[in-house]
């Protein structure tokens, strides 16, 4: 699969994970402070940062193809 498509898909997955960790209610795995069902903004921020990195990576990959 093309690297820029993989980057785009990963960016969407990371954004979904960021939303998942930001909303209280569901059980959040891999959380060690507060309650697992509370909001975990650090996790959400890290996944937003990863989504940004994926978007940037996808852009570089798309430009490299041209």
């Amino acid at each position, binding site marked *: 699969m093309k690297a820029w498509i993989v980057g785009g898909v990963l960016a969407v997955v990371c954004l979904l994970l960021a939303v998942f960790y930001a909303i209280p209610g569901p059980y959040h795995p*891999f959380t*060690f402070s507060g309650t697992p069902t509370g909001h975990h903004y*650090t*996790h959400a921020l*890290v996944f937003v940062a*990863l989504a940004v*990195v994926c978007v*940037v990576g996808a*852009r*570089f990959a*798309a*430009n*490299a193809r041209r």
Partner: protein
Amino acid sequence: MNPIHVLLLALLQGVTELFPVSSLGHTVIIPGILGWNETLHSDAFLPLLVTLHLGTSVALLTFFWRDWLLLLRGGMRTLIAGRFTPEVDPEGYGRQFALVVVGTIPAGLIGLLFQHPLEKFFSIPILAAAFLVLNGAVLLAGELLWRRQRSKEKMIAAQAPMFGSVGRSLNEMTFLQAALIGCAQSAALIPGFSRSGLTMVTGMANGLSHEASARFSFLLATPIILLAAIVEVPKLMGAQYRADLPIAVGGGVVAGVAAYLSVRFLMKYFESNRLDPFAYYCVIAGTLAFIYFALQSFNIVP
């Protein structure tokens, strides 16, 4: 908190964070030997740990400030252009910035998801001592393989070695290699394994020179240590930590000065020297600590 304990822990953290001998391992083993476990498990230890890490990262930023400026400028230029062409990034700083970002992701992610269970499970002095011996073995193996690879390359100059040419600079590193070094960095969440040691050995296994490996290792250390400390800073505002904050800040300053002197020494040292003295230290210190803790568990020593 006992000021003498704080001073010694700050010195220990500042020096061992950058030397390839495991700072986490030393902060588990030495208090275990000296009987400071109460200090380590007290509530006041958190602000101290945060300020020690902040001090170390400020020292790294101060030492590498010119590099970071060039990397950030190069990173911005390539980010806007969206490509790493020689016209956009003639000296390769933009690409190096991207390598640091790629190398930071595995450790950042694994640290976020697994740091607490790993530290909790492995923060046992005798285990840390065993892992310190293993760390020494990894350093020794990395150094020996690198030497063998280099002498082989000298003999057969025409043949390309398995991992590419030996003694390369950062500009020749691939993104996959940066990610591999980042993965090696995350193993340092286990007390006894050294972050800088593992990243340097992985860099050398991928053909980097000692100096380039050390430089990349210290560049990788800055964002990860700084971010880990910044995440914890809001906790310092809690009323329970206010009394211990001044002494913790003092510890941070001591750790920062020790870290600055350490990185200055190490960058000079790795221009011409090798990893094996640190490997021998880890094996000897780890073995002695292991024997001590084993004897302690049988009540033979206090």
